[in-house]
């Protein structure tokens, strides 16, 4: 079932000011896809999700689930959350502490007055699906974080909703478990082919789980695309920066070479970059992701500079290199290099022209 949000606006009024939590947001999530709303805290992503669930009322706009209009201020349509037929996993999991695992999962069926035997059958099936068989009679308070998260998922799935909503479901897990759960959840969602809207502020999680990502900032969707499109081809500096770390270098476009690469001049030298159709002499911004640098390799740009600081993170070395008085770049170098570069050392960073991108902005 597709989800369509049209020009939804929500304003929060505090004593002193009015905050536009959502500013005429529109999007369409195709049936069976996982769409992630990604953005910094306070960008309105959770408010948008809660509007879709019916837990908040927007000030204007329309929300449609499949063919059914569930919210429209203009047409006076307001379907309460319990009649929207959705499943939702909350950030805090919202496992009811006064019930067992079975009771928690059975709740959506209970309130629909599903016959007893069928409840038992369906709850057992869904608990098996999330690998919690045998936990039926465990009080919900005696579960680990990961188990609670599975109960929450089971409860959201048990009534076989057409749309699943996730509100930062992994943010309360510890780092290691979170990474493992990312894989499971991705496999699970592709297998179910269910429409899912997923809210997170964690870019790695968004990249891993989504079919598509909508990046939000200050109540607006500022970019939309598949994880790879956004990571490699985003044009908006905010999006580039939010979806991964990046070096932003300001220079002047001086020409194009015969391979079609743009030549951009910086105080520390000239780089070959990707970027078509700029007039000569334009002031441009070039972005290079830290992981694009290496110490070896032929045919790339070479940037020489002096190491300012270097740390070992376990996965790689993070090195800050000064190219001239005003320019410092961050490079992530594979930890297979035998020795960590020392501060003060001269270093030559290499980067392929494909990874140096001229932004349109």
């Amino acid at each position, binding site marked *: 079932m597709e989800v369509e949000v049209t020009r939804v606006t929500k304003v929060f009024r505090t004593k002193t000011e009015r905050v536009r939590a959502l500013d005429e947001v529109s999007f369409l999530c195709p049936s069976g896809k996982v769409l992630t709303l990604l953005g910094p805290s306070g960008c309105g992503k959770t408010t948008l999700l*809660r509007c879709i*669930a*019916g*837990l908040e*009322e927007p000030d204007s706009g329309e929300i449609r689930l499949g063919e059914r209009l569930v919210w429209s*201020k203009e047409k*006076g349509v*307001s379907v*309460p*959350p*319990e*009649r*929207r037929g*959705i*499943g*939702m996993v*909350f*950030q*805090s*999991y*919202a496992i*009811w*502490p*006064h*019930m*067992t695992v079975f009771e928690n999962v059975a*709740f*959506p069926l209970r*309130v*629909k007055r599903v016959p007893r035997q069928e409840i038992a059958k369906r709850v057992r099936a869904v608990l098996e699906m999330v690998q919690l068989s045998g936990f039926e009679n465990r*009080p*919900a*308070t005696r579960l680990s974080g990961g188990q609670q998260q599975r109960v*929450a998922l089971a*409860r*959201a799935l048990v*009534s076989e909703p057409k749309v699943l*909503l996730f509100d930062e479901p992994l943010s309360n897990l510890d780092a290691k478990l979170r990474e493992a759960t990312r894989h499971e959840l991705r496999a699970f969602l592709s297998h179910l082919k269910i429409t899912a809207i997923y809210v997170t502020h964690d870019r790695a999680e968004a990249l891993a789980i989504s079919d598509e990502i909508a990046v939000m900032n200050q109540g607006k969707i500022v970019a939309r695309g598949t994880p790879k499109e956004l990571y490699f081809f985003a044009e908006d500096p905010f999006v580039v920066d939010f979806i991964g770390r990046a070096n932003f270098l300001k220079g002047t476009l001086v020409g194009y070479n015969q391979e079609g690469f743009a030549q951009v001049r910086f105080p520390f030298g000239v780089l070959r970059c990707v970027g078509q159709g700029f007039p000569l002499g334009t002031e441009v911004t070039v972005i290079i992701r830290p992981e694009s640098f290496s110490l070896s390799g032929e045919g790339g740009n070479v940037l020489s500079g002096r190491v300012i600081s270097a740390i070992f993170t376990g996965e790689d070395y993070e090195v800050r290199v000064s190219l001239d008085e005003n320019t410092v770049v961050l490079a992530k170098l594979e930890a297979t290099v035998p020795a960590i570069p020392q501060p003060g050392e001269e270093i030559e960073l290499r980067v392929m022209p494909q990874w140096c991108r001229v932004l349109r902005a």
Partner: protein
Amino acid sequence: MVQSPARLGREIFIWGLILLVSLLTVGPAVMLLLGSFSQRLGRIGPFTIAKYLAVYTDPSFPRVLLNTLIFVLSSSTLATVLGTALAYLNVRTDIPLKGLFQVLPLIPMMFPHVLFAAAWIMLLNPTNGLINVWLRTFTGVKEGPLNIYSLGGMIFLEGLLDVPVTFMVVAPAMYSFDPALEEAGRVGGASQGQVLWRVTLPLVRPALLSAFMLAVIRGLAAFAVPQMVGIPGRVQILTTYIYRLISIGWSPDYGRAAAVGVLVLATALVLVYLYRYLTAEGERFVTVTGKGYRPRVSRLGWARYPLFFGVLLFFLVLIVFPLAVLVYMSFLPYVVAPGSKALSLFTLDNWRYVLSDPIAGRALRNTVFLALVGATLGVLVSLFVAYAVTKVRSRLTSVLDSLTFVSYAFPGLVIGIGFMWFLVRTPLYGTIWALLLAFVGTYLPYGVRPLGSAFFQIHRDLEDSGRVCGASFLGTFRRIVVPLVIPGVFSAWILLAAMFVRELSVAAVLARPGSEVLSVQVLKYAYDGLWGRVSALGMIMIGLSTLLVVGASVLRRQLSRGLYLD
């Protein structure tokens, strides 16, 4: 703007609550004001300021004001100092037998003030008080030497009775600040005493202030102690002055009582407003957070046992002595020092009399009714009010919040007079229902507060997920919210029930033949000097509230075990 039906329903619900709460709290306060400008009880108007003139030109009135000021400030200071010392010793030191401190908050629930005063009268009255008799035989002085019937005696008793309150305000503050703040002081070169004086106490200053303010508000409303020990000693304060106007002589003057009452109520309102302002300030004191720090416990060293005996003495004075003297005296015809003479006088007459007295019997039935029905009604109203205030959160609910909070300011005796004016022309007047209504209205905040914090602890997601899972608003309330606040419901019920058993000041105004209650009956026996009967009836009162508290606690434990909430 089109309102969605959900929002509209919510607003009607909140307006209904506001109306109900206003009727119970603002209603009597307004009637008090109107009454103070009226000729006689039962009819509002014609407008007159005669009552104010009569009261405020009374030559004895300045003395009453001065007494009130001294009484309130001294007893609050005593309570704050003792409460803070106990809180510090309990939370921050290695004093032995800490379990003892957990009894402290329970004492005011079990021990009615009127009985506490009665017990200390039996111990310290100048003619045959047991301690005085004992002191006389040891020192050889002819009379006294101690006299409870004095301003000092009033301050001593009221101060002690307010210690649990100040303790309960200060102790959490002692718990909830980062011990690193103190450790930084020690590392910086300060001694333990210097750290206490320069770091710890300033940090909990907001809590100290609010404890003091609470004690002041309670002192201003105090009636049992001033009536029991102040009146025989000819020391009047505002509440007892008001009570005299309505209880003595052929024609009680409710107009004059209201004219004084307006002054007391206005003062109390200012104090409560100040208290609220101060506690709001306190929340801005970022060091004291809700974070569960493990408090740093300092070693008392050589002072450990001397301080412990001090604490022990305090508990003896607060609980053991008064309780023991009540038990002892309930078996004696008059006050006799323990010994062979007392043994020979042993009698069951007091119990026999109290149990067969038809008025005492009716008072017992009425009190049980008020405790059971009143607490249930109070909890029901509080449940909805607390839900609206903590969970809905709009401009309307903050009005509701202030409305409920305002009755914290209401001195029972004064608001009782307000209720008198309010109800006198209704069929409720003179019935037990008048007391029921007045009790619920006056003590509403005591139900709303524990329930409010219970609701506050329920994460919004727990409710939202109920809605998303297909349950309606009411379905979610019934299946999820109510089961989760069951422990809070019981706490509120216990608090209210125990309070209604011992309630004296509202009842003293509203109780009429047929609607007597135990506390007022105790006051009557005490007025006639029948200490044996005071003790026997008092034991019944204490037994009743203990039974209610213990019974409800057991039930709560059973229920929350069934709900996995342990």
